[in-house]
């Protein structure tokens, strides 16, 4: 397969970026999107040109490092996959593919397609943890957890913090990420003790980082590679109300 790529190139945080066109030639349909970029970078290396910078790590959809805005969609057109899991067969041969970095004031571009996502780290540091050492895995029946709660906490814990929710949201709101973290702890006994302070501090940090406000358009749910449900946002709102008023 052959593609024309329009890729956002930006030298550093302060410089003004622009789209540059590249040709991706002889691309296998089974290649992942990142492997296709690797191939383009190999060609650039041969020509002694500056490689296209993009974030990646595990390349199996679990680390949350990769995240590109492809043809106007976070992680591309396929649902429930990260950029590294996206295969080139999902694109039409011979077409032009536009690739941009996540765009959010809270995610400044570092270089080309790489953005600074430490804002998410700060949100986790504000409350996305359990303060006490919970030790090693306890006896299965020593802390009773209803199956439904365990399942839902597990679904929430599937969030890999890639930033697609904030990237896709028209308001650049990371509420799906934040709510998944709040849900994950609120549903389990270990997280119960700090549930009030957790939600308030995490929301406060989100606001300080300059993210937008959730207006329930649910674009995040569509774009989430882990298919996290907006039901968690409703729970997070409940947690917030409970922390403030009950």
């Amino acid at each position: 397969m052959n593609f024309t790529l329009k890729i956002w190139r930006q030298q550093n945080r302060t410089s003004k970026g622009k789209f540059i066109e590249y040709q991706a030639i002889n691309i296998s349909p089974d290649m992942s999107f990142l492997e296709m970029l690797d191939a383009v970078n190999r060609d650039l290396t041969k020509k002694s040109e500056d490689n296209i910078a993009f974030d990646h790590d595990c390349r199996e959809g679990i680390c949350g490092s990769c995240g590109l805005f492809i043809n106007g969609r976070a992680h591309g057109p396929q649902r429930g996959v990260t950029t590294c899991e996206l295969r080139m067969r999902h694109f039409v041969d011979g077409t032009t593919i536009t690739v941009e970095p996540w765009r959010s004031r809270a995610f400044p571009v570092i270089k080309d397609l790489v953005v600074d996502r430490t804002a998410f780290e700060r949100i986790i540091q504000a409350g996305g943890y359990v303060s006490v050492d919970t030790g090693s895995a306890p006896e299965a029946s020593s802390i009773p957890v209803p199956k439904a709660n365990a399942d839902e906490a597990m679904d929430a814990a599937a969030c890999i913090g890639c930033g697609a929710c904030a990237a896709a949201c028209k308001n650049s709101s990371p509420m799906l990420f934040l709510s998944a973290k709040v849900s994950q702890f609120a549903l389990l006994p270990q997280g119960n003790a700090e549930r009030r302070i957790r939600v308030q501090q995490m929301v406060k940090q989100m606001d300080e980082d300059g993210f937008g406000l959730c207006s329930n358009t649910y674009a995040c749910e569509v774009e989430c590679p882990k298919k996290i449900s907006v039901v968690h946002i409703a729970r997070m709102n409940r947690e917030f109300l409970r922390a403030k008023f009950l």
Partner: protein
Amino acid sequence: MRAFIDFYNSSVGKKLIVGLTGLLLISYLVIHLFGNLLIFRADGGEAFDTYAEVLPQIVVIRIIEIGLFLLFILHIITAAYTWILNKAARGDAYKIQKKNETSKVTSRTMFLTGSIVFIFLVVHMRQFWFNSRYEATEGYSMFEVVRATFSNPVYGAFYIVAMFLLGFHLKHGFQSACQTFGIRTKNYVSFIDLIGIVVWLLIPLGFASMPLYFLLYF
């Protein structure tokens, strides 16, 4: 007061205020609609005129009126404030973003539909509320004013279009408020959507039926 300022300053707090005021305004719309349905009584507008005359004489109604005014102000100012914050949160815009594939148009146009409904509200208040309250002369008939106004095709059409946009606004607004209050859980999504139909379809339809009635029959 400190607690309230903290609450208002937080993003979720602002959303809760927009949601709460929105839900209260919807409940007002229901009452407003039921009262106005008197206009369809085949008594030459007598019942409607009595209703319009007696209502402002009740002290409680005048107090509620002030509360209602404050609700509108709080809803509009907070929503506009969040809109400004949200615009700033993006920074550089995407060169290509296919919003149509990920969200509904009603959810993305709340500020626009809300703004148009606000313009309608100003015209509407001037036409009916201000007139009857401050410019009414002896023998003032609200029914006659309504008939004269709605028989005018320009105003009638404006009213109907505004009601269509109100429906658009409420379609997202109602379920969004339920989500913000955390009651839109898995088990209640379909129930909230059902109530939502009453809110976004029947309320605007009920209001739009009035200019339609006068346009067609008078």
